[in-house]
């Protein structure tokens, strides 16, 4: 896909003036935050599980070569094939080779960010193979010729009347009086169309939430059931996963599952958690005849051992963007590549280079909410700061912005002073925000607010609210 991250500022301005988008973004604030909190609060072990999940991934990353070896052996033992790909191009080539061997004309796809990262659909299209997205949100944006604007809710930027218009345009055989005004009727239409595709496809492609070294299994976690039909019905199942998806054992999967769904959608467990191990076996009445796994590097090995290593713990739950005021204001497309929000601001420069993605870490108010909700305890603000420093050193920022950041950095290095100043400043800023609770200028950060409004903070800082909440919790527990 075309990378528009370098024009983040213009993208953001555009987003702020897009009425449909602004309406749709309301669903992010309303749809995710409370659900996550309720699910987290209902499990007393939740925070301890976050620690456990972090430790599991740290341990895995420190032994990644060995777990990959063990995993590969297990997949081979169960009759599957493992392919290694250093770059996106290598991975695409491997997919195409497998499809060609099957004379595949149609492939179905489960929802997968990694196939977005390697821009697989366009590539297959050029090779004459139809790639059909089967997740409802992915299907919608494929009809619209767009990319996901959120890693777990790809069509969150679209309103239902837009979806109706897209369905009418593409499913042009539908009678005019067919009701497509509600999510229910739209879903029914998508379900009907996609059912046929699962049976037609020769190859089904999915990503993986986890790869398990103990058993050689790939794991997908979904709600719709489309991923399962995608990997169950075609003759060939291809799993594409980046190397850091490995976890050692089934028990480790269990620990991380407990924080994944709660952080993502506020569910205790997603509807379908499926472990696939090898191809169809003797006597099996269903399942794919071939099972392939493509292990992709695409920049991960270069993050290992650097200050960005912690980012490799990410389980793509989306909580950081769901809680990010910048994401709430501009949506996912403004970030200009595959991964939006705080995780995207850290990952994008790592994967496509600081010259293209280096602006993104500036898209932060450093409120710290992302880190406070990240199930894997990834220090996102710290890593955004690392990128800023690098960009700063390279002199890629305009002078005024650099000046502002320098002052800001002086504060940030003295947390007490910073807390004091922001606690003074925030009620003041809330006044500036006025009734609409939006700023059009913010002292010291003119480079950021010149072209956009920021939501005004509540009159207490996030840190204050957080501490109150935490102490309330402790009191309740005592």
């Amino acid at each position, binding site marked *: 896909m075309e990378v528009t991250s370098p024009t983040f500022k213009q993208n953001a301005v555009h987003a702020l003036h897009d009425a449909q988008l602004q309406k749709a973004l309301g669903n992010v604030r309303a749809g995710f935050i409370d659900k996550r909190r309720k699910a987290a609060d209902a499990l007393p072990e939740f925070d301890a599980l976050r620690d456990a999940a972090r430790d599991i991934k740290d341990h895995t990353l420190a*032994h990644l070569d060995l777990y990959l070896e063990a995993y590969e052996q297990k997949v081979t033992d169960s009759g599957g094939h493992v392919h290694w790909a250093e770059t996106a191009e290598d991975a695409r080539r491997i997919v195409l080779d497998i499809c060609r061997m099957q004379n595949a004309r149609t492939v179905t796809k489960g929802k997968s960010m990694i196939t977005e990262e390697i821009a697989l659909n366009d590539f297959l299209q050029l090779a004459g193979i139809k790639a059909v997205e089967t997740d409802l*949100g992915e299907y919608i944006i494929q009809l619209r010729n767009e990319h996901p604007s959120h890693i777990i809710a790809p069509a969150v930027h679209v309103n239902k009347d837009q979806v109706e218009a897209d369905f009418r345009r593409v499913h042009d055989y539908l009678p005019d009086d067919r009701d497509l005004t509600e999510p229910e009727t739209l879903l029914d239409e998508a*379900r009907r169309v996609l059912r046929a595709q699962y049976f037609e496809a020769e190859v089904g492609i999915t990503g993986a939430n986890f790869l398990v070294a103990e058993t050689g299994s790939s794991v997908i976690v979904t709600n719709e059931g489309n991923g399962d039909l995608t990997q169950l019905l075609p003759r060939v199942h291809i799993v594409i996963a980046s190397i850091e998806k490995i976890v050692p054992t*089934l028990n480790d999967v269990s620990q991380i599952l407990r924080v994944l769904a709660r952080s993502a959608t506020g569910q205790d467990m997603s*509807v379908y*958690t499926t472990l696939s191990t090898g191809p169809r076996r003797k006597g099996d009445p*269903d399942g794919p005849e071939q099972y392939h796994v493509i292990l992709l590097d695409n920049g991960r090995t270069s993050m290992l051992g650097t200050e960005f290593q912690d980012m490799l713990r990410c389980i793509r739950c989306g909580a950081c963007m769901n809680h990010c005021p910048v994401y709430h204001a501009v949506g996912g497309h403004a970030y200009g590549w595959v991964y939006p929000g705080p995780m995207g601001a850290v990952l994008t420069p790592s994967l496509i280079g600081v010259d293209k993605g280096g602006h993104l870490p500036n898209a932060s108010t450093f409120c710290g909410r992302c880190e406070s909700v990240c199930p894997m305890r990834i220090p996102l603000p710290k890593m955004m700061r690392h990128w800023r420093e690098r960009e700063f050193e390279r002199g890629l920022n305009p002078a005024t912005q650099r000046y502002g950041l320098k002052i800001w950095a002086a504060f940030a290095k003295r947390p007490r002073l910073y807390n004091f100043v922001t606690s003074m400043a925030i009620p003041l800023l809330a006044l500036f925000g006025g009734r609409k609770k939006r700023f059009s200028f913010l002292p010291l950060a003119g480079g950021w607010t010149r072209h956009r409004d920021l939501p005004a903070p509540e009159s207490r800082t996030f840190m204050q609210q957080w501490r109150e909440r935490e102490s309330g919790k402790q009191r309740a527990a005592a």
Partner: protein
Amino acid sequence: MSARDAIMGKLRKTLGAGADDATRRETVAKRLAKPPKGIVPERGQGSDAHKVKLFCQMAEAVAASVTRVRSPERVPKTVSDYLRAKNLPASVRMGADRRLKAMPWDKLKSLELKYGPSDGFDEVGVSHAFAGIAETGTVALLSGKDNPSTVNFLPEHHIVVVDAKDIAGDLETVLSGLRRKFGKGGMPRTLNFVTGPSRSGDIEQKIILGAHGPRALHLIVVG
């Protein structure tokens, strides 16, 4: 150099640099041989009665429906009652599971039984679960001729029979059960953990039941 060698080479250079390779290998082998149990929520712990009750509660909270019956003999009648209540045709699809086969289906003269994997034209599929998980109201289903995976996803309604004695408090207990059944590191081709009927929130974040999988999940707890 192959892609594998290139990636492994980079990893070893970063991770193995200076570290004692034998120790690293031992650490990994140990963890794989004896997976640490981790943190298991209190929620699912307690008496068998508590586990079954919690399982039913959690399943209903995610929009599954639940019927409890005393013995396997009652299952066919329960299935047929469900079909009637939902105005469904008297026909069900199921695999070759012996526990299902042993049930007195022949007493229901009008009920059509179709065996084998689903072809996508079934209104109702019946499966027998390997286990239930109380902490989340989840059922675990294993692929194979006994319970073909297509039966879990293609029918509009999925009825799952689960023995009360197979309801565990937590996921880890079920994973241990799998290791016993398939040997260490062994797995069925497909293991489905199913928690409620399929759903989507992709349009305006409004949750709708019945996305691409079954629109309804009915659990029959036996015992």
